[in-house]
């Protein structure tokens, strides 16, 4: 009870567990957290493995290296926080504070990397969005129409500016080029003979030029594996340029274009990815707040209990990531 001046006696209790109330509370709380993440991860598992189409990690700019780095960072932070606890138990407040600070920094780095990763997705138009996502599931006539729509909005905008710069003139050229060279033939072919594969090939070509999916090109580079159905597992030995394993399409060459992109299963991927990592990141943030509070305290023997509880929470956050990492990055 916080009101210590109360006249009530301090009662005797007979606790069932040989641990403090705080720790009991924390463990029970973690049980609820387990259920929370079970629901999220369960959702991911059934939607992902039930999905008809699912992008490979490189299709959506997910780089294993960053996931692995983040795993490593969280592991490190798990170590530093137990060391902080250990120091606090030894009544070594300054060293405890040092470890705690390090934990805090590691957590921040984790978030930083997460933000960088999010940025990579956002900049390619990979995110859920109301009312209509940027991501199209298949290259069909609707996709072509969406591309055309975007192109014409851009073009009217550009043309309406009175004194155009050199840049803007070039932009118009690019737009016309895409429309003429890719969209028109595809639409024409589809219209003339909806059942023939020719149109679909053209549509796919359009999609590929706008947003070349790594998995397609990886297989090509690795012709030896292309025949096996799970050749998309060729993740490391990719011919990809840059760390994201991504080939540059129109959207990369001309970032202002922001054309709709085609990633089979991309919408569901984005939904689940941001759901899982988002809630995990939220937990990281809460952990960081707790660290800040702890950093304001003297981390000696008396506060060891609190450090232990915060530590338990932090380890749990680490645990969740341990499962998220292979599920999201490696499967």
């Amino acid at each position, binding site marked *: 009870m916080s009101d210590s001046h109360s006249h009530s006696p301090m009662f005797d209790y007979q606790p069932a567990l040989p641990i403090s109330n705080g720790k*009991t509370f924390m463990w029970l709380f973690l049980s609820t957290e387990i259920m929370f993440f079970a629901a999220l991860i369960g959702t991911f598992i059934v939607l992902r493995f039930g999905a*008809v189409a699912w992008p490979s990690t490189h299709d959506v700019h997910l780089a294993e290296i960053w996931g692995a780095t983040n795993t490593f960072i969280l592991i490190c932070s798990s170590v530093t926080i137990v060391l902080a606890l250990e120091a606090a138990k030894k009544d070594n407040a300054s060293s405890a504070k040092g470890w705690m600070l390090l934990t805090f920094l590691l957590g921040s780095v984790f978030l930083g990397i997460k933000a960088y990763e999010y940025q990579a997705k956002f900049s390619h138009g990979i995110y859920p969005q109301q009312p209509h996502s940027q991501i199209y599931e298949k290259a069909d006539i609707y996709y072509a129409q969406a591309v055309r729509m975007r192109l014409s909005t851009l073009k009217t905008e550009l043309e309406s500016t009175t004194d155009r710069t050199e840049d803007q003139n070039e932009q118009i050229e690019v737009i016309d080029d895409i429309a003429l060279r890719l969209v028109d033939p595809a639409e024409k072919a589809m219209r003339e003979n909806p059942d023939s594969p020719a149109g679909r090939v053209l549509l796919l070509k359009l999609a590929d030029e706008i947003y070349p999916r790594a998995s397609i090109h990886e297989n090509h580079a690795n012709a030896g594996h292309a025949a096996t159905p799970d050749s998309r597992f060729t993740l490391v030995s990719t011919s990809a340029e840059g760390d994201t394993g991504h080939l540059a399409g129109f959207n990369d060459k001309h970032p202002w274009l922001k054309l709709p992109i085609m990633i*089979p299963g991309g919408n569901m991927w984005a939904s689940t990815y941001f759901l899982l990592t988002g809630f995990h990141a939220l937990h990281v943030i809460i952990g960081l707040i707790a660290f800040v509070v702890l950093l304001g305290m003297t981390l000696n023997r008396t506060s060891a209990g609190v450090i232990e509880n915060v530590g338990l929470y932090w380890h749990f956050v680490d645990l969740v990531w341990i499962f998220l990492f292979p599920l999201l990055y490696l499967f």
Partner: protein
Amino acid sequence: MSNPTNDANSHDDHEHHGGVGIYIAVFVSLCVLTSLSFLTYFDFWRDRVPMEASRAFMMFVSCTKAMLVIMFFMHLKWEANWKWVLTVPASVMSAFLILMLIPDIGLRMRHASNERMIHAAEVPAQDEEHDSQKHTDHPDDSHGAEH
């Protein structure tokens, strides 16, 4: 058993547990285990091990890592029997929830949107010469939904 504040007995009994040495050892094993998941990336592994097995392996690695964290970092190895009471129910429940979802959602969807699958991103088979850089495999499906 009656200790007025009942906060006292929590942190004097496992003083001697843990220790920097153990933590470092656990840390190293965690790092090693993480890199083990990447074994599945090597051609050597990929050519020999079916994907399901690889995934099972990766999950196994994750579980091992989780156990290490729980046992050592979260000190459960050194705790009394209450640890089972507070951890097992939630773990069982969560596993059960996921298991029960699988037959209904995970497996059911194969039939749900065949139409979408057909129109998914593959190039029609007869047109291979049109666009030599694409292949008719299923870059995006893991289940072999084509069966």
